[in-house]
């Protein structure tokens, strides 16, 4: 991908350290995020993969301080942004960081844009709030941003309402808004899931370009391993609230260690595989994702794992470093498992 930033030389801009976000309800405690740690590096895309309920979105909301409380609460851990723990900040200080330091885009651009304000109005608000521009300056800056995200005839579009734009255009407008204050971190939660493939290709291309231009650290949350392979520099695989595997992208795809990651990779239909005579049937991961209220004892994947051992059912393995930053949470690779 030719990113100029070297992973070893640059300090992480954000460090999530043993984050625990739990939801409290009558049914009990749902440990949606249960001890998650990873870093974001400037100019790099960190892909967070997992299925529904694995905690990938709640992790992002925790960073933004947007976990609905009640029922949710960050109960433990640290989120260090330039060495400052975001969890210690009050709402005013956090607001300053949101938007200017850390911005977020969501899956459904229609429901995250305000339908009664024009696109220009919503983008220029960012400039007025965070940069103190006056109305005129802010609107000019908004037009400029729309141009950067390649919206055709930005002067006209700036006065339009969200419903007048197509899905792809709305997502561009969202990205324009998120990038308007030149944030150091962009959190993108399933940014292309609601879009058609040809439009998805455009948006991914755009995010790539913006990342290189602004050397933003992007946290890309997706269920699509294809998008991860194409975009990410490092990958964090989550399952039932925990990180099960983490590595540089190539390493992860070439030397997949965790049975869950292997299962995920084998279960996606890949264009051309059937034609080329590869696997006529897809590999299934048996069973279903466990409820967070009713997790298996021991390893959380143990009730679906094809390689389950006795230890797995009783003891939860630690995330273990296998060298060169490849971490895995599995008794197959952690000492003390088979004994």
């Amino acid at each position, binding site marked *: 991908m030719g990113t100029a930033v070297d992973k070893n030389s640059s300090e992480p801009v954000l460090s999530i350290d043993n984050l625990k976000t739990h939801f409290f309800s009558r049914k009990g405690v749902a440990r949606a995020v249960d001890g998650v740690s990873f870093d974001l590096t400037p100019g790099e895309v960190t892909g967070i993969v997992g299925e529904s309920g694995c905690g990938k979105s709640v992790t992002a909301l925790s960073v933004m301080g947007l976990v609905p409380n009640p029922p949710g609460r960050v109960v433990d851990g640290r989120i260090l942004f330039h060495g400052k723990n975001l969890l210690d900040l009050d709402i005013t200080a956090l607001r300053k960081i949101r938007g200017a330091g850390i911005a977020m885009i969501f899956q459904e651009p229609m429901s995250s844009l305000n339908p009664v304000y024009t696109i220009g109005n919503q983008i220029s608000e960012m400039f007025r709030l965070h940069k103190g521009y006056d109305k005129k300056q802010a609107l000019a800056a908004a037009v400029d941003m729309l141009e950067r995200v390649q919206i055709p005839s930005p002067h006209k579009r700036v006065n339009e309402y969200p419903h007048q734009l197509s899905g792809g255009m709305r997502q561009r407008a969202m990205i324009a808004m998120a990038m308007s204050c030149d944030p150091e971190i962009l959190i993108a939660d399933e940014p292309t899931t609601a879009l*058609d493939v040809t439009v998805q290709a455009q948006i991914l291309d755009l995010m790539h370009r913006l990342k290189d231009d602004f050397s933003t650290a992007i946290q890309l949350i997706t269920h699509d391993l*294809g998008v991860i392979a194409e975009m990410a520099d490092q990958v964090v695989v989550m399952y039932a609230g925990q990180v099960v595997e983490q590595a540089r992208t190539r390493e992860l795809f070439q030397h997949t260690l965790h049975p869950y990651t292997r299962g995920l990779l084998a279960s996606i*239909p890949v*264009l051309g595989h059937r034609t080329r005579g590869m696997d006529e049937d897809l590999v299934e991961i048996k069973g279903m*994702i466990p409820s967070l209220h009713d997790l298996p004892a021991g390893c959380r994947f143990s009730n679906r794992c094809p390689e389950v051992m006795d230890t797995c059912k009783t003891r939860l393995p630690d995330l273990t470093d296998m060298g060169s930053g490849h971490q895995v949470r599995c008794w197959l690779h952690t000492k003390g498992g088979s004994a």
Partner: protein
Amino acid sequence: MTTPLAAVTDLKVHFPIKKGILARTVGYVYAVDGISFEIMPGETVGIVGESGCGKTTAGMAMVRLTPITSGSVHWKGTDMAAMNRSGLRALRREMQLIFQDPYSSLNPRMTVRQILSDPMDVHDRFTGRQRKARIDFLLDTVGLSPGQADLYPHEFSGGQRQRIGIARALALDPTLIIGDEPVSALDVSIQAQIINLLKRLKRDFNLSLIIISHDLAVVEYICDRIIVMYLGKIVEAADYASLYKDPKHPYTKTLMSAIPVPDPARRTRRIILKGDVPSPINPPGGCRFHTRCPDRMDICDKQEPAMQRFSDGHTAACHLYNNTDADLSHATPTHVSTPTKGDNP
């Protein structure tokens, strides 16, 4: 040659746009605008395309859930337009649907047993003693346990609900099942289970399937033949291998290159299209893809390309192939209309 199970000929579905208090028709949404294809007994056909290409409307028109503007659908040789109510009703027993969203397509107030009984009541089949055995059989077939028959939909996960939807579609021993995005709302690991289930059912029950999907990879896995649609038209149709190995239409090529491949070693330059899909209310003249086509020529905005026939029943509508060695007989329907060697079973 066997009669096709269903034959769609020059099907058009236009939805009027009404405006003002007099509800005058101010225009039309050209959702499906002249498509022809056939489906053979036991065959699986995939219809792929992006939002607004008319794939769902085409499927709904086949079961007459949406009125047809012009053209015809023949079911086992009989024109569906000529059928009366009871004829249509009998036919609907043979055609069943699976929907995308397993949450909204099951009635939350009905137990699984009631959901599965409903179609049997309507068509007066599997009555009395047979009923319980039938429901047990259906649940077992889709990988649920008969003991779960008296639970409500909310007690199941998304993948299990989709299995209930499939069991309901199977309830009356249909000949054809139309699946409208049957796996796109599911998680990856669950999606594989449902894809494998559909493939197994197709084999075990000798079903014909129409899979409507935006996902070319999913369709390649399940289907024998694939139809690619763009703005209400079929742009290309071929068997899965031929479409993958040798896509003809620039739109098919773009679609294929746009799909992210889960292999970081194969990061290739994708063909990035400009702009969005134009509105089906006011589709571009000539070839409908000309506004976004990377291989556009002068003729493309003037003249609509005819469907051209290549070997093995591969057809594509594109001016790029006007002067090739393709057999220029105007192919309608897109599948086999003249018997050739490979097509005879």
